[in-house]
């Protein structure tokens, strides 16, 4: 065609299927190097060659003579020479050109060129199609083997069966379940047969039910070890117009799944138990926390309160129907606590102890607390919470105050005791001095009494002496009246003398000036002395005085003079108050006791019961008339009792009015020295 039409150079560009580039496939009369490197991107819509391809019209580019000419035409291996571009159409009506034919020729060659390009285009198209078909086949083969390797990679058995249940395609896993060669063991083949039967029955019954995806369980036998395998059968009916209806089945092994679900159930159960335990734990913890009398507050890392026990709630939560004051208190508490926590959160301290001045919202009482806060850190060392315990310090403060008071009181007491001790020492000193003084006074008193007694006796001596002389008639005889009167003077003088003597005795006893002179003596001798000393009175009284003494009476150890004085007194009293009958003096040693009883019993006037104790008192006689009638000072018995006590003994009286009296002196056998 070139030679007939004077075509010296040409270039064929085609668009391969699925590509967006025009590439050079053949040339004539052009430099080979320029041709192989030449291509045009179809995405370059403004490219004159792309426009030719899209418009499918023949275009002639005249030779370029200037830069402006060059800008209006594409750069080609033809360079500045004129060339024709003809699209390679499939037909006159085709909407698609498969390539372009470029050739250098005179402007008028269009008739033959269009025929050629049509034929050439069809040929090129055919070639391209064939080419594309071969490509497709190759790709399909690749894809198929890819698909196989994919489905084989799936661990679940996947199989395609026809409507009769015959196996068309199976993956490797499915093959182990459903196929067995002749070499396999009988057991394995039996298992495979059973699996096929189970599968086809499952599929057929499934096919009866409905079309579309359905799930059901299928129990198969593992041909390898005979164990049960539970599958979930997922089958889908595929309609292929070329190959007819088939069923794609995917068997998902749920043996593991069931185990897994059982495990999950077990885990869930455990979880519930754990949850219950942790709830119980938490309840117990809450109980513990609530039972702590001190407020406990748990704060999160952001400073927000996450847990409070009951005492803490009382401090920091608004009471029901709180008054404005109560609200202020709670808010103040909250503010104080928050600032403490804020300080804790920013500090690096793990623990912090501080004092917070809270207010008891129930009473409004100031409540200083000691706050002990500790940080709780996570495993990674992040702050998760702050636990704060508030300890009421009021009690401690109160105790301290009480202790202080107690200490003061004790100091005061000590001071007082010291003062009292000093006072006592002082008093003791005073007492000691007083005792000395008393002793001196007592001595002075005794001295005084001795002197008194002397001073009394001296004039009394003269009075009694002269009276006696007159009565004896020293100064001449007296008439009876004078004698009677002088007798009165004498008896009163004697009475006065007796009183003086007895007062002296009492004062001596009381001043301790009557020392004991202990000696051993015989009672009969003593009683004989007493009796003989009072003989004149006995004679006058005309009474009988009887001694009643046991024969084996042993001597006693005592102050003879004083015992004698007592007995003299008792006997003279007995004689004085007895008008008829007699007086009996008896001695008895009490069996088992180291005492001796000396009794003086009379048959006299007796003493009434009420008076029996009075007679031992100083200056006592039953009435003043007795003094006149019977004489005596009224001091005798009181002296007797004092003397008896000095001797370690006692005097008792038994008496009946009108019948008589018995005075008993009881003495220790061995008198104290």
């Amino acid at each position: 065609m070139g030679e007939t039409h004077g075509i010296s150079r040409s270039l064929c560009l085609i668009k391969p299927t699925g590509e967006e580039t025009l590439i050079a496939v053949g040339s004539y009369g052009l430099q080979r190097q320029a041709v192989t490197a030449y291509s045009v991107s179809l995405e370059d819509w403004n490219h004159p060659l792309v426009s030719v391809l899209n418009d499918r019209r023949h275009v002639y580019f005249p030779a370029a003579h200037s830069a402006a000419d060059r800008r209006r035409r594409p750069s080609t291996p033809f360079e500045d020479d004129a060339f024709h571009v003809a699209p390679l159409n499939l037909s006159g009506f085709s909407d698609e050109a498969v390539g372009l034919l470029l050739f250098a020729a005179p402007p008028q060659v269009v008739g033959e060129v269009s025929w050629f390009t049509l034929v050439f285009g069809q040929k090129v198209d055919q070639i391209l199609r064939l080419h594309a078909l071969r490509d497709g086949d190759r790709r399909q083969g690749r894809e198929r083997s890819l698909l196989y390797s994919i489905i084989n990679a799936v661990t679940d058995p996947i199989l395609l069966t026809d409507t009769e249940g015959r196996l068309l395609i199976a993956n490797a896993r499915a093959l182990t379940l459903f196929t067995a060669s002749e070499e396999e063991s009988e057991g394995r083949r039996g298992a495979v047969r059973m699996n096929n039967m189970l599968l086809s029955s499952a599929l057929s019954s499934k096919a009866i039910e409905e079309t579309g995806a359905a799930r059901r369980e299928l129990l198969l036998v593992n041909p390898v070890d005979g164990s049960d395998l539970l599958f979930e059968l997922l089958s889908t009916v595929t309609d292929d117009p070329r190959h007819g209806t088939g069923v794609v089945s995917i068997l998902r092994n749920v043996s593991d799944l069931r185990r897994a679900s059982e495990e999950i159930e077990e885990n869930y159960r455990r979880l519930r138990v754990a949850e219950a335990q942790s709830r119980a734990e938490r309840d117990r913890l809450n109980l513990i926390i609530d039972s702590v009398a001190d407020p406990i507050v748990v704060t999160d890392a952001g400073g927000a309160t996450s847990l409070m026990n009951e005492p803490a709630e009382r401090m920091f939560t608004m009471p029901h129907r709180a008054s404005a004051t109560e609200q202020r208190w709670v808010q103040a508490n909250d503010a104080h606590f928050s600032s403490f926590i804020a300080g804790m959160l920013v500090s690096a301290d793990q623990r912090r102890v501080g004092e917070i001045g809270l207010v008891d919202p129930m009473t409004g009482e100031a409540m200083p607390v000691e706050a002990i806060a500790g940080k709780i850190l996570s495993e990674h060392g992040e702050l998760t919470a702050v636990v704060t315990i508030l300890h009421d310090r009021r009690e401690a403060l109160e105790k301290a105050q009480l202790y202080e008071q107690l200490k003061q009181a004790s100091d005061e007491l000590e001071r007082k005791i010291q003062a009292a001790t000093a006072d006592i020492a002082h008093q003791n000193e005073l007492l000691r001095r007083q005792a000395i003084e008393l002793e001196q006074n007592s001595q002075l008193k005794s001295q005084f009494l001795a002197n008194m007694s002397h001073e009394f006796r001296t004039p009394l001596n003269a009075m009694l002496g002269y009276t006696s002389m007159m009565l004896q008639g020293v100064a001449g005889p007296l008439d009876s009246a004078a004698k009677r009167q002088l007798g009165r003077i004498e008896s009163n003088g004697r009475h006065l003398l007796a009183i003086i003597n007895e007062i002296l005795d009492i004062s001596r006893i009381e001043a301790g000036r009557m020392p004991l002179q202990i000696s051993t003596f015989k009672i009969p001798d003593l009683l004989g002395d007493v009796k003989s000393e009072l003989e004149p009175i006995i004679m006058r009284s005309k009474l009988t005085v009887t001694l009643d003494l046991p024969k084996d009476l042993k001597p006693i150890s005592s102050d003879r003079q004083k015992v004698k004085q007592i007995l003299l007194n008792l006997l003279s009293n007995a004689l004085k108050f007895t008008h008829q009958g007699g007086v009996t003096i008896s001695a008895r040693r009490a069996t088992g006791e180291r005492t001796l009883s000396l009794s003086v019993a009379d048959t006299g006037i007796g003493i009434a019961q009420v008076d029996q104790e009075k007679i031992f008192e100083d200056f006592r006689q039953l009435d003043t008339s007795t003094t006149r009638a019977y004489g005596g000072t009224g001091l005798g018995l009181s002296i007797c009792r004092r003397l008896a006590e000095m001797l370690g003994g006692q005097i008792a009286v038994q008496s009946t009015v009108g019948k008589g009296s018995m005075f008993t002196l009881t003495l220790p056998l061995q008198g104290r020295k």
Partner: protein
Amino acid sequence: MTRVKLDRPRVLLVDDYPDAREMYSEYLEFSGFDVVEAANGMEALQRAVEEAPDIILMDLSLPVMDGWEATRRLKADERTSRIPVVALTGHALAGISEGAKRAGCDAFVTKPCLPEDLVKEIRKVLEHPSAAASRKTRRSDKHAKTS
């Protein structure tokens, strides 16, 4: 007064209380004694030497020189040591009679003492078989008996 009667025993009466002295003196004269008086111990010593009484009645509480001291001196003096001394006192305190005896008194009489009782005591002392002789022995006998 009637000092010429040599058969009457001579009594030296020593007492500072005139009424008592007079009373006893009168009664002793009445009872047949020759009485010489002294008002204190010093006087008594003098009279005892001068008058050579047969017996001395010595009140113990005396001015100038008391009865105890006078008795001690009398008993210490060769001229008077043989004259019996009867102590006479209004003091009734314990130990007085003991003190009197230690001083050398031969008897002890407590006032008030009726004149007749005193005369009895004087006679008792004078009539003692060995009143004039070996008085010291007798005195020690008396000591033993009364203590």
